[in-house]
């Protein structure tokens, strides 16, 4: 079923919307949640919770691209699950990703709390300015939470190149955050 039709079903409050979404994107959502939560049962629960959130959000929010929207909701739900359930002892994969991203934060910003929207806007502008190839690698690592080995295999490049690209993009992000004048 076309995405536009699925969104219409959500808008019409037709429960088939859930079935059609699960049928088309359930596996991708499950894989996304599993990468973050590293537990099958938790991942299943996360997908169900995400579908419920989407059901509640549409039609108030009308996504332009359903797949990206679903994956975003699923990713946020999984990250929140970890935040609330296991605040101090985060899951291995998330711990690794957050530790790497920690290096992007300019020293003077570490003690401040970032305003979510401002930081989002700043990151979006940063991503827009990246060359496509670097953006793809960065997104796969930090948005999808994929391992360096998986990215290396996916793009047919060495693991070393993936690591170097991630390192350089993180360094660039740090410089960008330093330059950007956003509210902290």
């Amino acid at each position, binding site marked *: 079923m076309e995405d536009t039709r699925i969104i219409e079903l959500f808008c019409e409050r037709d429960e088939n919307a859930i079935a059609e979404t699960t049928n088309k994107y359930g596996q991708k959502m499950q894989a996304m949640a599993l990468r973050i939560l590293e537990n099958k049962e938790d991942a299943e629960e996360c997908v169900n919770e995400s579908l419920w959130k989407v059901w509640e959000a549409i039609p108030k929010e009308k996504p332009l691209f359903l797949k990206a929207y679903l994956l975003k909701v699923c990713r946020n739900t999984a990250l929140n699950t970890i935040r609330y359930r296991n605040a101090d002892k985060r899951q291995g994969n998330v711990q690794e990703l957050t530790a790497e991203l920690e290096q*992007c*934060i300019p020293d003077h910003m570490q003690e401040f709390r970032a305003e979510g929207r401002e930081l989002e806007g700043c990151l*979006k502008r940063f991503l827009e300015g990246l060359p496509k190839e670097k*953006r793809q690698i960065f*997104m796969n690592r930090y948005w*999808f939470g994929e391992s360096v080995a998986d990215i290396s295999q996916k793009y047919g*490049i060495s693991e070393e190149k993936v690591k170097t690209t991630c390192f350089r993009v993180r360094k660039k992000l740090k410089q960008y955050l330093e330059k950007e004048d956003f509210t902290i």
Partner: protein
Amino acid sequence: MNGYDILNALGSAGEAFVEEAQELRPTKKTVIHWSRLVSTAAACLAFAVLAGASLMTVYYFASPNQKKSEGMTVVSEAELLASEESLVQTEHVVVKTEEYSAPAARVLQEESDHTMLRFEGWVLPVEQVVIAGAFGQRANGIQSDHVNLAGPEGDRIVAVADGKVTETGYDATLGYYLILETEDGVLVKYAHLKDVTVEADQEVQQGEMVGSMGKTGRVTGPNLALTVYVDGVPVNPFR
């Protein structure tokens, strides 16, 4: 602020790049100029049997650092072109090359006159029509239901007639696309766009910009794939 804040904020910030990130390989290296591979009759037959989709993922240009995995054959571009027939039937072939850029569009016809259009009152979707792929039977034996109009990436693409956008989206083959339904009920599909500047259910006027020329989806270079359906049947938009 900590790493977790960035990871969290990235969720919304990166939403627009999710589709791009899921492309199998960066665009300039994803697609081999497969028309070269299927230039002989035998290759055409093998291509049909093995199905285009799997071939497109099997043959690709790799970076010089490509690691060879099990079942993978690494050849040079020259070797590949010299032995088309046998390679078409090989399961894993990686072509190593330092740099690969899409070949220039094969220009079949170059026009900019509206009268070349089959439909009276329509305007051309692009300023300068460069037909890189014709409707119907192509030289490689494939029957095409659309025309490919080549042009510089980012060029303005407009609505051919007044109508309503019925669908917009992204597809692995079509890239970013939209479907416009004209007031006469003709459906016009624009594919491989760099971006779509209209939304589903939006009314558009003839000549209004609907997107820009791109190379998203399965393509070798920037072009607009234009498919026109009359009563559900694809027709050639040109005379």
